[in-house]
């Protein structure tokens, strides 16, 4: 059986959901004729026609806001923002319409829709093709924010997103598109929103991460195991609402926690996770909650040495875990 890549998993999820429910449609730049700049929508225009696979003009405001409208009249939009760097123009529609529709209308109108956002660094994309910006959506109640790290989760979570009644920002880390492959079940499956995955069980320290950093953390965990440190690795998968229970249970067990995030440190998702752990598990902690994050600079620089320097990696994570263990 041929292993399925991350991006193939995404394509499958969309194709299957479009097959299942005629209300599902796609809109985005270069998704039709071209099949997407990363080929996530390859073949779907031919299969579903130009009213269900809509090549959009360069209009990120409309791609988001128009999808909200379509969702309001009963459709299930799956919109694509080509790069997370270009989601800034969509912020108005995402924050003021999509996230607040149910709330402000007394649930008369809702916005069951998904925005797929290609994101992340470590691909030589530079300042404008490496951003994630997940923290903006993370701080907006009303939104669901997903950022899977495996083909299985990508497919299962995307299906949950499309079927669910809430507005979802679905981040796809482009570094994983063709790198990560795995066998997927033949039969239909979903992955529940709001549940983290324990990737490795361990007893000494909890590492919490998501996206590309789940893989970098895994590399660190493998190395640390050789050094005699047993890590429990948690992949958040869902960023909002995040799975406090799973993370808290693990920290209660290990009493040490390292949080790994690709985006800049200040004001990132891991600030919340760290603050919440510090707030609620004070008596369990044997060492300070410690973060390994992207640098606090305006964005990931292009030149390879700077990009490499910006990003957390297995060595940096390993060093920090050892420091936390030595505390």
């Amino acid at each position, binding site marked *: 059986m041929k292993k399925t890549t991350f991006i193939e998993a995404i394509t499958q999820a969309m194709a299957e959901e479009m097959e299942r429910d005629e209300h599902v449609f796609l809109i985005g730049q270069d998704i039709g004729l071209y099949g997407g700049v990363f080929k996530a929508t390859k073949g779907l225009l031919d299969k579903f026609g130009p*009213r269900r696979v809509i090549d959009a003009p360069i209009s990120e405001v*409309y791609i988001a806001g128009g999808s909200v409208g379509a969702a309001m009249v009963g459709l299930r939009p799956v919109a694509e923002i080509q790069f997370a760097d270009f989601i800034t123009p969509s912020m108005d529609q995402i924050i003021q319409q999509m996230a607040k529709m149910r709330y402000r209308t007394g649930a008369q109108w809702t916005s069951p829709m998904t925005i797929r956002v290609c994101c992340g660094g470590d691909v030589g994309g530079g300042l404008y093709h490496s951003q994630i910006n997940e923290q903006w959506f993370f701080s907006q109640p009303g939104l669901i924010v997903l950022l899977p790290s495996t083909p299985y989760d990508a497919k299962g979570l995307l299906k949950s997103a499309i079927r669910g009644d809430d507005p979802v920002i679905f981040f796809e880390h482009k570094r994983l598109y063709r790198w990560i492959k795995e066998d997927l079940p033949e039969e239909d499956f979903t992955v529940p929103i709001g549940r983290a995955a324990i990737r490795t069980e361990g007893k000494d320290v909890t590492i919490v991460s998501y996206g590309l950093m789940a893989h970098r953390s895994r590399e660190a965990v493998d190395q640390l195991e050789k050094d005699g440190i047993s890590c429990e690795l948690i992949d958040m998968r869902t960023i909002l609402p995040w799975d406090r229970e799973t993370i808290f249970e693990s920290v209660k067990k290990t009493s040490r926690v390292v949080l790994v995030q690709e985006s800049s440190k200040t004001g990132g998702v891991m600030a919340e996770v760290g603050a919440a752990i510090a707030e609620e598990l004070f008596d369990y902690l044997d060492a300070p909650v410690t973060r390994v994050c992207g640098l606090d600079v305006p964005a990931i620089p292009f030149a390879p040495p700077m990009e490499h320097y910006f990003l957390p990696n297995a060595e940096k994570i390993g060093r920090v875990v050892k420091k936390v263990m030595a505390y």
Partner: protein
Amino acid sequence: MPAKTKSKTAVSKPTLKNIGLSEETLMGLYTNLLKTRTLDERFRKLFRQGRFAGTYFSAVGQEATTVGPTYGTREEDIIAPSHREIGAAVTKGIPLVHIVAQVYARINSPDKGKTHPCHYGWRAKGVISPSSTLAGQTIVGTGCAMGFWIQKKDNVVLAFFGEGATSRGGWHEALNFAGIHKLPIVYICQNNLWAESVPATMQAGIKHFADRAKAYGFPGVTIDGNDIVLVHQTAAEAIARARAGEGPTLIECKTYRWYGHSEIDPADYRTQDEIDEWRRKDPLDRADRLLQDLGILTTEKREAIVVEVNQEIDAAIDACEKEKYAEPEEAYIDVYSEQFPVRRDEY
């Protein structure tokens, strides 16, 4: 310069035949105009009496621009309003008690008191509850039209906004998209000459906002927005075109708001002459005279309508004055679908 549809009410001796509308339609337009005007003036009074919180955006003087297009639309058609569309809310048939409850922010409001006054919305009648972000519903409304287009339904969307909102980027993106796919939508610009304190001349380097349509490949037309018959007929034609798959129209209605931007605005940036001039062009008065000329409105008939409208309004206000605000914990409701319960912090 955009084509100017000639007013059919300007003919020397108007008859039902040369106007081309039925008595029922004319009376319907008139009654909705009157109801909107009466309710709007009541809200202004109630606000000044401190009967409800927040603020109030009066549409007095420009009701024909919202009543005219909305009258005669189908239940499944969507209204995408901004902040000055009380006329569309009334005409599309949101029960008055819901309209009043929205302004009063009471628990019986469709939004349960969550957003501020004048954001009328009612799903059963296809009226989108608006956000404050200008042109917001133009974008979302265009999305509704896209939804109809995808599903090959023959419903139509009416998107309302002021001339100020046409400067917004999202407005451009929406109309551009609608032009590409000939979406079933009619864009209605209420050019009331002012965006808060900014005159239309400082909003764009063009005289006629209907000219904006030239950038999108569909017709734009500038009309007298205080002529309810003209507004209704121009919109009806555009709606028919949209319904037939022939694409959008941008209708610019020249009109005027008599009062401040909101009730807390003294509106001293305008001259008294300008205000007086436009008061003379009162759309309600004009409709009234037309219907009298046509012989379908008499003093007695008007009085009966006035009484009925006032009774309906009184009843709605009474009902809402008696209602409570939602409990504070309502703040935690409707964040997500039931699937995701909201964590509550206790302080």
